[in-house]
């Protein structure tokens, strides 16, 4: 299943961290028409590079899926950053 949401926190004015929640699912839905429009170009590129198109798409799909549960947190007094993907 593709990631549905994420949280990110970046430092503002050095110390304070500003956390915000990013729903990814609407982003996928919004980008879907663009992906469909680009599909013929991807197909041509795959054929040119001699990569099986469906295999290529499957690999990228798996890559997006595997981003779930990724967590990167850096807590430093000067600059704290946190990224979590659900």
């Amino acid at each position: 299943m593709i990631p549905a949401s994420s949280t990110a926190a970046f430092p503002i004015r050095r110390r304070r961290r500003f956390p915000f929640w990013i729903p990814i699912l609407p982003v996928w839905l919004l980008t879907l028409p663009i992906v469909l429009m680009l599909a013929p170009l991807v197909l041509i590129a795959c054929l040119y590079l001699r990569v099986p198109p469906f295999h290529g798409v499957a690999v990228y799909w798996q890559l997006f899926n595997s981003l779930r549960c990724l967590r990167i947190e850096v807590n430093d007094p000067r600059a704290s950053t946190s990224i979590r993907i659900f």
Partner: protein
Amino acid sequence: MNENRKRILDMLAAGQINPEQAERLIAALEKETPAPQAGANTEPRSSAWPKYLRVVVEAEEGHHANGPAKVNVRVPFQLLRAGVKLASIIPPQARMKVNDALHEHGIELDLNQIKPENLEEVIYQLKDFTVDIDDKKNKVRVFCE
């Protein structure tokens, strides 16, 4: 059927591993999972395959007045699997260039040799992998969970 055993058989059916590798993985699985006692609670051992690679760093060195710096990274192994599969669709010409560039930087790594079935075995063996570095001011811990 055990979930891990089914997964190994699926990999074998899909041609991702050969029968010899499947046999080795199942043997390792049987060694890891003792036969359940009659009447005992038979909870499936999904923990046999690690899911995440964790890197935890606590550094007190330096100039921090507000406490130590901490790094906490959790990378799903699925991401590594996907990355290896991504490497498999790199066109051969590009792969050769990458291999040459790695060689120039002193990294003897052949992308052609990195295959998903090899990674599965590595991931399985990583279940007990732990690197623990603990000096006076810094702690680094790399482990799988």
